[in-house]
C-alpha cells in the first residue's frame, strides 16, 4: 500500500514538473503575469500603487531628512512655543504648525509610519488567524465548520467600533495593543472569504484526482487549494489594510489608540478639532493624508480584484 502511494506520488510529481516546464517554455502566461498585464492597463490602480509606494518611501526614510528640514515631530521647544504656535501654511512650514509650535508636515510624515504599521501588521494578524480558522472550517467541515462559523457569528454580532474600544479598554492603550485589537477582531471576515474560496476550489476535479493519487491533506491544501484561493486573499488583504488604517485613525481620534506625543493622523485631527473655527487646516491636512492613503489601497484593491478576476460579495 505505502509502496503504491509513493509511486503515485512520484508520478504526480513528474506530471507537475512537466507542467511547470511547459509553462516555463511559454512566454510567461501564469495567473500572475496575466493579472499584471491587466493591472498595467488600469490607470486608477497604478495611481493607487504609486501613492502607496510614495508614502512608504517617505515614511521609511523620514529619519534621514525630515527632522533636519522641519524639526522634531514630538519634542516641544518651550522657548519658542508662543512664537511658533498655530502658524498658517507657509514656505517654511508647508502644513503650518500645531498649537505647541511643532511642524504639521513632519508630524503627518511620522503619522504615516503609525498608519502603515497598523494597516499592515493588523492585516497580517487577521489574515493569519482567518486563514487557519477558515481553512479548518472549509477543509474539515462538519462539526469544525459549525463551531468556527458560529464563533465568527459571535464576533460579528458585536458592533465593530464598540468591540475594538472595549477590547482596548481591557488590554490597555498603545500601538502594540492597537495591532492586537484590530488584528484579532478582523479574523471572521477573512475566515469567511477563505472558507468560501476553499469550498469552491475543493469541488474541482483536480482536487479529487490529487486525493485519489494518495496526496495528504496538507499537500492538497498547500499545492492545490492555497494557490487557487490566494488571489481572493490578496485582494481582501489589500482592502483590509485601508480599513485598518481608518479604524486606527478613529481610535486615536477618540483618544483610545496610540498615545501622545507619538504623531498619529487621528490624534492630529482630534487636536485640530479645538481650532476648527480659527485654524481649520490643522484638522484638514491630516484628514487628507488618511483619505488619500486609504483611497490608494481601495483603488489598488479594486484593480487587483479585476485583474485577478476575484468575485467579491458586495459591490
Amino acid at each position: 500500500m505505502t509502496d503504491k502511494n509513493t509511486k503515485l506520488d512520484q508520478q504526480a510529481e513528474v506530471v507537475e514538473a512537466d507542467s511547470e516546464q511547459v509553462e516555463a517554455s511559454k512566454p510567461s502566461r501564469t495567473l500572475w503575469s496575466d493579472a499584471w498585464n491587466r493591472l498595467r492597463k488600469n490607470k486608477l490602480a497604478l495611481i493607487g500603487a504609486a501613492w502607496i509606494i510614495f508614502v512608504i518611501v517617505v515614511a521609511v526614510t523620514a529619519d534621514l531628512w525630515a527632522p533636519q528640514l522641519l524639526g522634531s515631530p514630538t519634542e516641544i521647544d518651550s522657548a519658542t512655543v508662543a512664537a511658533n504656535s498655530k502658524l498658517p501654511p507657509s514656505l517654511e512650514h508647508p502644513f503650518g504648525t500645531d498649537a505647541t509650535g511643532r511642524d504639521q508636515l513632519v508630524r503627518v510624515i511620522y503619522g504615516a509610519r503609525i498608519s502603515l504599521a497598523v494597516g499592515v501588521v493588523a492585516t497580517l494578524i487577521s489574515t493569519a488567524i482567518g486563514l487557519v480558522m477558515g481553512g479548518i472550517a472549509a477543509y474539515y467541515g462538519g462539526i469544525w465548520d459549525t463551531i468556527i462559523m458560529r464563533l465568527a457569528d459571535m464576533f460579528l454580532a458585536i458592533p465593530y467600533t464598540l468591540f475594538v474600544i472595549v477590547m482596548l479598554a481591557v488590554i490597555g492603550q498603545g500601538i502594540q495593543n492597537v495591532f492586537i485589537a484590530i488584528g484579532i477582531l478582523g479574523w471572521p471576515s477573512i475566515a469567511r472569504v477563505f472558507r468560501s474560496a476553499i469550498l469552491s476550489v475543493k469541488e474541482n476535479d483536480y482536487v479529487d484526482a490529487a486525493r485519489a493519487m494518495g496526496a495528504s491533506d496538507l499537500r492538497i491544501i498547500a499545492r492545490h487549494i492555497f494557490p487557487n484561493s490566494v488571489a481572493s486573499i490578496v485582494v481582501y488583504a489589500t482592502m483590509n489594510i485601508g480599513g485598518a488604517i481608518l479604524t486606527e485613525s478613529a481610535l486615536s481620534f477618540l483618544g483610545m489608540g496610540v498615545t501622545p506625543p507619538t504623531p498619529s493622523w487621528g490624534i492630529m485631527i482630534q487636536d485640530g478639532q479645538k481650532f476648527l473655527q480659527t485654524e481649520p487646516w490643522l484638522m484638514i491636512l491630516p484628514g487628507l493624508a488618511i483619505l488619500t492613503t486609504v483611497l490608494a489601497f481601495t483603488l489598488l484593491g479594486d484593480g487587483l480584484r479585476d485583474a485577478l478576476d476575484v468575485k467579491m460579495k458586495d459591490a
Partner: protein
Amino acid sequence: MAKYILKRVLQFIPVFIGVTIILFAMKAIVPGDPVKIITGGKQVTPETELQIRIANGLIETDEDGRPLYDENGDTIPTPIWKQYLVYMSDLLQGDLGTSYTRNMQVSDILASKYPYTVRLAIVAICLEAVVGIGAGMISAIKKYSFWDVLVTLLTSILVAMPAFWLGMLLQLFFGVFLRNVTGEAFYLPISGAGGSHAEFQAWVYYILPAITLASVSTAYTARIMRSQLLEVMNQDYIRTAKAKGLSRRDVIVHHALKNALIPVVTYIGIDFGAMLAGAILTETVFNWPGVGYEIYRAVTQRDWPIVLGGVTVIVVVVMIINLLVDISYAFLDPRIRFGAPKDKE
C-alpha cells in the same frame, strides 16, 4: 415559513450566549478594582467597602445577604461563572444592574439615551435610501456617462474618508464658513441635539449628524444598486420585455427595478440595525446624547455595568433587526422560502 423563522430564532440563542460570555470574560480580565471605580478612588471605611462589594455581587453571601467568610476570616470573592449566571438571570428579568459612576439603573440610563440614537438612525436611513438608490439608478441607467463617473468617484472617496472627519468638514462649511459668509443669516448648528434653549427648531439639529452617519453606507447602497440593476438588465426576461416593445422606462420601472431592489433593501435593513448600535464617532463629533457616546464615556470611566448592559442590549437589537431583514428577504425572494439552491457563497 414558520419553520424558517423558528430555525433562525434558535440559531440566535447560542450566538447570544457566546457574545455575553465574550463580554463577561473581557470584563473579568480588566485590571482595576470595581470598588475604586465606584468610590471614585476616595478612601472609604471597610464597612462601606463591604457594603459595595455585597451590593455588586462581588463576594459570596448567605441567603440574608450577609457576607460569608473562609477559615482565615476573609471574604470569599464570587467566582466569575457565578457572577455570569447571576448577571444572566437578572438580565432575563430586565435588570441590567446599577452604574458604577452614576447613581442610576443602567436600564434607565439606556432608556434616556436610546431615543436620540433611534431618531438619528431613522433620519439617516431615509437619507441613505433616497440618495443611495437614486444615485445608483442614475449611474446604472446612464452607464459610463459623466454622472456614472461622478457617482463612482464620489462613492470611492466617501468610503475612504474617516466619517468623523467628514462630520468636521460639514461643521466647518455649514456652521463656520456659511455663518461668516452670510453674516449669520444662514448656517446650521454644529453640535447638540436641541433643547429648551436651542436657537433652531429641533429637526435642524439632525441634518449634519444624519449626513455624517449615512455617508459611508449611502456610497455602498449606490454601488450595490448600480451593480444589481446592471446585472438584472442582462437577464433573459428583460430581453423578452424589450422584445415585446415596452419602452425602456417601462422595462426598468416595472420589470428590472423590483428584482434589483431586493439585495439593496436587504443591505439598507442590515445597515439600519448597525445604526441602531449607536454611532460612537458621529455622536462624539456632534455632541449627540445617544447610546453610542454614552457607552464610549462608560468605557473611558471603566463603568462596566453600562458597557456590558449597553452592548448586550445593542447586540439584541441588531439581531432582531437582522432577523426581520432575513424574514422579509425570504418573503421577497421565493427561492429562499422554498429552499431552492442558492448561489454558492
